[in-house]
């Protein structure tokens, strides 16, 4: 067996990371500043605005997008978080999730559209997406820390890597599921590629894409604890501290807060898509 040399994947990856490291400034500083700028903005807004306004805002959002009776659950749940004393950390977490979701959407939807239009691109993306979803987060957290340093930015990066695949997949699926006759109709009347995309494919794929966004937010939320391990603030930090101190009570409280946030976000985004008219 010794005669067959080991495939030096480790060396390749290290070499690649080292190569990226050399150009760290040019490559990663813009990303770093954009993400930390967004994070600062959201955490300032969310922690700066009085808690009852935020609660009312979320109540209104569930009223508009979700089912009416979940509004009560939302208001009670968020009030409970405030009562337990996790309000500020919850808002930090929410900011982290919103930024991760925004980045995922901005990158993921165009990537999904490209996948739907070009089979070759989809074939290239599929294993990449598999890798993103299944590679243990700690593996790419190490280089992320190397590039961005400790803190919230690598946390966002890790969340984006984990949470973006459903958006890409479901955008691709949604567009491909548009009945061929409808795409043909758009072409037959002389649409340009963009017109077909905007006026036919995206509107019809909307429900599926929204399901992708919903999944993305849920997955981003599930990454907050891991993000906390590399220095991100928020509920994840509380959970992490509770684990290290074996503080069962506080751990449960922080975990419960994450669950409440998850339910609220899920109800808002899940039902947004379902109000669409049935397709023929």
């Amino acid at each position: 067996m010794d005669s067959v040399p080991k495939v030096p994947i480790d060396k390749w990856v290290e070499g690649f990371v080292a190569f990226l490291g050399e150009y760290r400034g040019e490559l990663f500083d813009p990303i770093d500043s954009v993400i930390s700028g967004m994070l600062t903005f959201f955490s300032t807004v969310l922690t700066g605005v009085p808690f009852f306004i935020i609660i009312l805002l979320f109540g209104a959002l569930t009223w508009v997008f979700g089912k009416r009776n979940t509004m009560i659950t939302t208001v009670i749940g968020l009030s409970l978080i405030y009562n337990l004393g996790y309000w500020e950390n919850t808002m930090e977490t929410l900011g982290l999730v919103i930024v991760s979701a925004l980045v995922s959407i901005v990158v993921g939807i165009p990537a999904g559209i490209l996948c739907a239009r070009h089979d070759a691109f989809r074939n290239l993306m599929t294993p990449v997406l598999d890798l993103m979803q299944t590679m243990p987060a700690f593996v790419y957290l190490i280089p992320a820390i190397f590039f961005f340093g400790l803190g919230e930015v690598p946390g966002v990066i890790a969340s984006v890597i984990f949470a973006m695949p459903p958006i890409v997949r479901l955008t691709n699926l949604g567009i491909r599921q548009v009945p061929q006759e409808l795409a043909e109709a758009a072409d037959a009347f002389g649409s340009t590629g963009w017109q077909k995309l905007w006026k036919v494919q995206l509107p019809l794929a909307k429900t599926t894409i929204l399901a992708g966004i919903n999944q993305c937010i849920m997955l981003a939320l599930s990454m907050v604890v891991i993000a906390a391990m590399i220095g991100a603030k928020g509920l994840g930090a509380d959970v992490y501290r509770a684990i290290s101190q074996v503080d069962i009570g506080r751990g449960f409280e922080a975990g419960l807060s994450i669950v409440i946030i998850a339910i609220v976000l899920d109800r808002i985004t899940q039902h947004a898509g379902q109000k669409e008219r049935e397709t023929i």
Partner: protein
Amino acid sequence: MYRSIFYGEINGQLIHMQSNGCRWIRGSGSRHKPSNVDEKQWILNRKTEYRESTMWDARYYVGLRISISNHALVCCGISQFFVLRKNVKRGKRMPKIQVRQLSKVFGRQPQLALKLLAEGWTKEQIFRQTGLSVGVNQVSFDVEEGEIFVIMGLSGSGKSTLVRLCNRLIEPTSGTIFIDGEEIIGMNATQLREVRRKKLGMVFQNFALFPQRTVRENVEFGLEIQHVPVDARQEKAREAIALVGLEEWENAYPVQLSGGMRQRVGLARALANNPDVLLMDEAFSALDPLIRKDMQDELLELQMTMKKTILFITHDLHEALRLGDRIALMRDGQLIQVGRPEEIMTDPADEFVKKFVEDADLSRVLVAKNVMKRAEAITPDKGARVALQLMMDNGVSSLYIVDKKRSLLGLVSAYDVSLAISTGETLSTIMKTDIPTVSPDTLLHDLIPMMADVHVPIAVVGEQQRLLGVLVKGAVLGGLVGKVNISDERIERLRVEVKSDGLRA
């Protein structure tokens, strides 16, 4: 080596011939390539020259490129050329759509399948050996302006592929298509889009309405993507919706409509940008039979005023017979027969067509002029004796009386004529004038009850009461069982007669 090229039509196929250094066309300019000119550019210039030449109608350019060494073919081409030129000078109209040698092969190596087809392999052999699927196999036909051209075939015969090739929703493997003399194949994306926007409308089998848009927004779609201002396009959309009678439903969504109504919207959407050509892919096949018949009637009614050129795809023979001015039968990607409905019915090209049309109701296809016999007639100034002699010569028992322009005046029977010979009366005093007449386009279906009621022959008259022929029971019954073999020539002659009658009138 010099090269000459020639564009022309031989045996109904547009060809582009190349020959080696042979002079054969009279005309302006050299047909030989000067040595200092790039060959590709030269050929391109020649093409343009032919295209723009007044001597050549736009219909006579590149279809199929064949290299020939056989000068006989060239000579044949030349004679063909003069025939064509004569046609052009006579003002023969250019067909709206010309399809030439169009083929489509699905699979990775389409050219291989084309080669095998040329070697005489069948579609099935090719599929078994290479896995390539031949959709459309060297199809050529013309569609005249204002006609409904029906392409009929079973599923898998390539008819839907064929219609999609016409607006290049599917790219052909070889062959070409002209619409108004403009070559669709080879257009760049922008030109193609212009043609699709301005000239072609399409109606789909499953309607293909956009579910998120209202009826009006669906109908507006074609105009919207052309950036027509909102007011103008709403106006046009409303007109189109009114045409199909859905004014009340303007703001409904497709899910709220029944199948028939949805297809009306589909039709309105195709009509909204006022295209010359409508491509209708099994447009009524998804509707239930009664609604389908309504839609067919409505299409025919609309067509009376619109005069669009319609390429209609169907698998339903009765639909084809009802709608088609001409019908093309398709099997395994090839056209088996192209002709008027009555030709297809009475003169099927092969067993396949025969089987296909077997169960069709001939009485709803054949019209009076298809089964009428020559009518014996005489002018009233002739004497009774002449009339009797004429009857005896032709073995008939009655004779029509017509004036000099062959307008029908009346009918005399042999009995009356023989009486008149003894009394000395003239033909015009003894003739009966209340005789049954029908127009040449009356369906047999409507003739039969009439024939049962009357006991004298029925006269077929054109405009101005012009006598065209006579219906006798034997011939009509023969027509019903398809025993009457109507040759092209005869129909054509009848047609010309009817037409020239119309003109003279």
